[in-house]
């Protein structure tokens, strides 16, 4: 292909505050339409906005997490346009002077790391929802969402494939949850991406005309929409056509993008500073106090786990993919499990079971204390790794049971008494003299067969390492 793909993303992150950005109304999702629309949400005559400090704190946390400059002075502006779900006839947003200045986010695309530049992030209020066809062709307006705080995070056009765009979106999605500013619920619209896509002839520097795909709320849609859009643009250009700057919608049913409005129809938003709100002044003291409360960031934790605990890049990435996974892992370590085994068990058995039941790790029936005890039973050789899987399965269904009781009940306790193993081996050697002969005549494979017989004779309970060792000694005599 002789085309470069250029992608920039604007993400609307719904901030996890208790109330709306400019009023005290609740932000809970799923209320009866307009049950969370206070006078400010309804834009009654005479009401005024009052900035929610919590939303500001969230924006500062984000800025610090992407190494961005926090503006000491930012300004709320009015973006004027008429729409029934925009009650004031303007949206309060930050325009010329946003709260968060340039920063960076490192994404990993396969094996390579790539830095995506964050241009800015600004605070704004969400609009309400138009619900078409509520009753005989009429449109209903639900203003519960009107005024919910959003942080709009804008990147430079630094991504060059759908994969990179998705990697960025996933990384950002993890980060905003990690620092506690967003619940990350994409179905409920807490994290929505507008993706700007353009293509240009390979090697040229001038950017092509972009089209903006609006409101993508799943990683799969981001992937599909970009793939479709890129193909559409390339085909059009190769057919000698031109791309018109426009806003497009993605239809998940057929996987296509379709133009919504072109630049000529674009609104003139008549931005101007909102005279109802004073400029937002943030002093160094506030930034420092928030910085002191910031959690260690996923990239930092990952690096630390690699260096201090010897985890592989793969394991460390998996363990730091999500803050609650990291928490779970840390508790395993705290309870004495070894890092490598802890990571294996989380990323392996636990994840597959959680996925199977569509559960979040915080709702895992197996608590970290129990999993740590199980791992310790492997480490102290009470049970084999295979036996541990059986204990794990049993524990999943009976989370209240004691691990040692399960081990006992299932008879999984490993035989590590060398005298006892000695006896079993001696018996096997006598009963399978033919195999012994084969081995001694040079057939290495016969060794494994003998190990198998010993395990069988011990009903799988003999410590395999010990069996290997003792058997080897006896055969070499």
């Amino acid at each position, binding site marked *: 292909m002789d085309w470069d793909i250029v992608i920039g993303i604007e993400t609307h992150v719904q901030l996890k505050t208790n109330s709306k950005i400019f009023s005290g109304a609740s932000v809970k999702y799923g209320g009866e339409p307009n049950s969370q629309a206070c*006078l400010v949400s*309804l*834009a*009654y*005559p*005479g*009401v*005024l*906005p*009052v*900035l929610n400090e919590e939303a500001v704190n969230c924006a500062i946390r984000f800025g610090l997490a992407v190494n961005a400059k926090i503006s000491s002075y930012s300004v709320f502006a*009015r973006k*004027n346009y*008429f729409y*029934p779900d925009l*009650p*004031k*006839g*303007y949206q309060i947003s930050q325009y010329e002077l946003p709260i968060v200045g340039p920063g960076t986010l490192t994404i990993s695309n396969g094996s390579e790391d790539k830095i995506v530049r964050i241009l800015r992030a600004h605070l704004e209020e969400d609009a309400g929802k138009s619900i078409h066809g509520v009753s005989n062709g009429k449109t209903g*307006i639900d203003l519960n969402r009107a005024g919910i705080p959003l942080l709009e995070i804008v990147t430079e056009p630094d991504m060059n494939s759908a994969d990179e765009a998705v990697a960025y979106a996933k990384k950002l999605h993890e980060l905003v949850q990690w620092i506690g500013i967003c619940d990350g619920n994409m179905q409920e619209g807490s994290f929505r991406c507008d993706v700007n896509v353009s293509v240009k002839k390979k090697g040229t520097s001038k950017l092509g005309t972009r089209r903006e795909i609006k409101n993508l709320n799943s990683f799969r849609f981001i992937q599909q929409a970009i793939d479709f859009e890129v193909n559409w643009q390339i085909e059009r250009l190769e057919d000698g056509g031109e791309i018109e700057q426009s806003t497009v919608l993605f239809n998940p049913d057929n996987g296509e993008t379709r133009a919504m409005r072109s630049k000529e129809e674009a609104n*003139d938003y*008549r*931005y*101007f500073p909102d*005279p*109802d*709100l*004073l400029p937002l002044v943030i002093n160094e003291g506030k930034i420092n106090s928030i910085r002191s409360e910031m959690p260690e960031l996923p990239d930092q934790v990952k690096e630390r786990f690699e260096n201090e605990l010897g985890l592989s890049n793969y394991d460390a990435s998996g363990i730091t993919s999500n803050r609650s996974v990291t928490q779970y892992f840390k508790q395993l370590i705290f309870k004495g499990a070894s890092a490598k085994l802890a990571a294996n068990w989380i990323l392996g058995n636990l994840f597959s079971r959680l996925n199977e039941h569509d559960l979040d790790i915080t709702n895992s029936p197996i608590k970290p204390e129990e999993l740590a005890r199980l791992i310790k039973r492997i480490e102290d050789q009470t049970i084999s790794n295979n036996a541990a899987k059986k204990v794990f399965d049993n524990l999943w269904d009976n989370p209240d049971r004691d691990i040692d009781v399960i081990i006992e009940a299932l008879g999984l306790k490993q035989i590590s008494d060398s005298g006892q193993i000695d006896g079993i081996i001696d018996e096997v050697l006598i009963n399978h003299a033919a195999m012994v002969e084969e081995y001694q005549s040079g057939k290495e494979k016969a060794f494994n067969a003998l190990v198998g017989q010993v395990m069988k004779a011990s009903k799988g309970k003999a410590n395999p390492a010990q069996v290997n060792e003792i058997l080897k000694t006896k055969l070499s005599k």
Partner: protein
Amino acid sequence: MLNLSLKELSVQLEKKTFSSVELTQFFLERIKLHNPSINAFLTIDENKSLLMAKDADRIIQNGDKKALTGIPIAQKDIFCAEGWRTTCASKMLENFIAPYNATVIEKFNQAGAVNLGKTNMDEFAMGSSNETSYFGLVKNPWDLLKVPGGSSGGSAAAIAARLSPGATGTDTGGSIRQPASLCGLTGLKPTYGLVSRYGMIAFASSLDQAGPMAHSAEDCALMLDVMIGHDIKDSTSVERKNENYLPTLNDSIDGLRIGVPKEFFGEGLDVAVQVVIDNALKEYTKLGAKIVEISLPNNHLAIPVYYVIAPAEASSNLSRYDGVRYGYRAAEYDDLMDMYFKTRQEGFGEEVKRRILIGTYVLSAGYFDAYYLKAQKIRRLISDDFRAAFENCDVIMGPSSPSVAFDSGEKKEDPLKMYMQDIFTISTNLAGLPAMSIPVGFVRNLPVGLQLIGNYFEEAKLLNVGHIFQKNTDWHLASPKGLV
């Protein structure tokens, strides 16, 4: 009861010479009798008012009376008052019943004052003659053929006609001071941010400020005491120690430096008005003040700057009147756009639409820098002029209005002429300074107002300077004939 000041009414209520119910009934009767000819009130609700009066009487009985307890105050129909129709004198809000109280209303309620009714005004406070009201013009009690000024024309006419002993007003470019001047009253526009704007229907948010209107500076002081205070519901309201304006009312003004801007006495000022203003200034020198000539070199830019900034903010503030959630909606329409067009076309009056158009224009892409940004820069220069002037004086004085009350209809069709009415008042709104108008004489039997401009948060000084004048003169006690 007719001619008693708020202070005297307060004393009589305390003495139980009459009750709040009697007092309220007295004014309600007068409103019933005279409002049809003056049109100062848009909404009267006897039951509500009398219920408040009863409550006040109970408080007085219990000995918990505060300064304004039991005193009827008329409220400009720009303030939302729970359960009261609140129209802003617009068809758009003709049937709008406010579901909550503006902070100003809340404060009067807590002070035990009685809401006497909602007063007429220019539609959305846009006008200087009270002729833009959807509910008809207000007549000047001094001469029913004349306008009372605007936009707080209903409040001014109500007080002048003795239909209410005091009233609230709001002032975006002169809307308290000019009608006070044209109706022979005392009216104060406080420093921007001193009185909460919460619940006061917005015209131009960076300029709007509520204030008291009454006969005297002393009465305004009593009302202002109640109105001020930081409000967490208004981010632009200032946090400062609450002042009490009464103790300093009688302070000596000996040695007071009165700055008189030469720009206030040029072309456009009625010569007869100038004579009255000069006499008032002479009176002040007799009282110990000194006159200092000052200059406000950018004052001539105040009107053009104002007519960029105020309409810009208004065009956005009035977007919420779209027929979707409350207020007027066109009876018939084809689709959403048609609903917007017809609703706003039919619901707003001419002047409001003119200002929405101007505001939309100056904020449009390509014009923003040339108009809005430039206006903001000049606004700063105007503030700087005042800052420099206050280096050399304590109070600035001049006319409140270039003329006395003019005929109804005289300027209605000529917006530019109408806008000139505010030539002396607008610059203080742009600078955010406090200013007051007090009656200082008559021209052709119509009142003339002297404007007093103070430095930021020097309301106490303005009230003191006004009160000293009124202690030595009786212009503020004059009342129009025929109605009283």
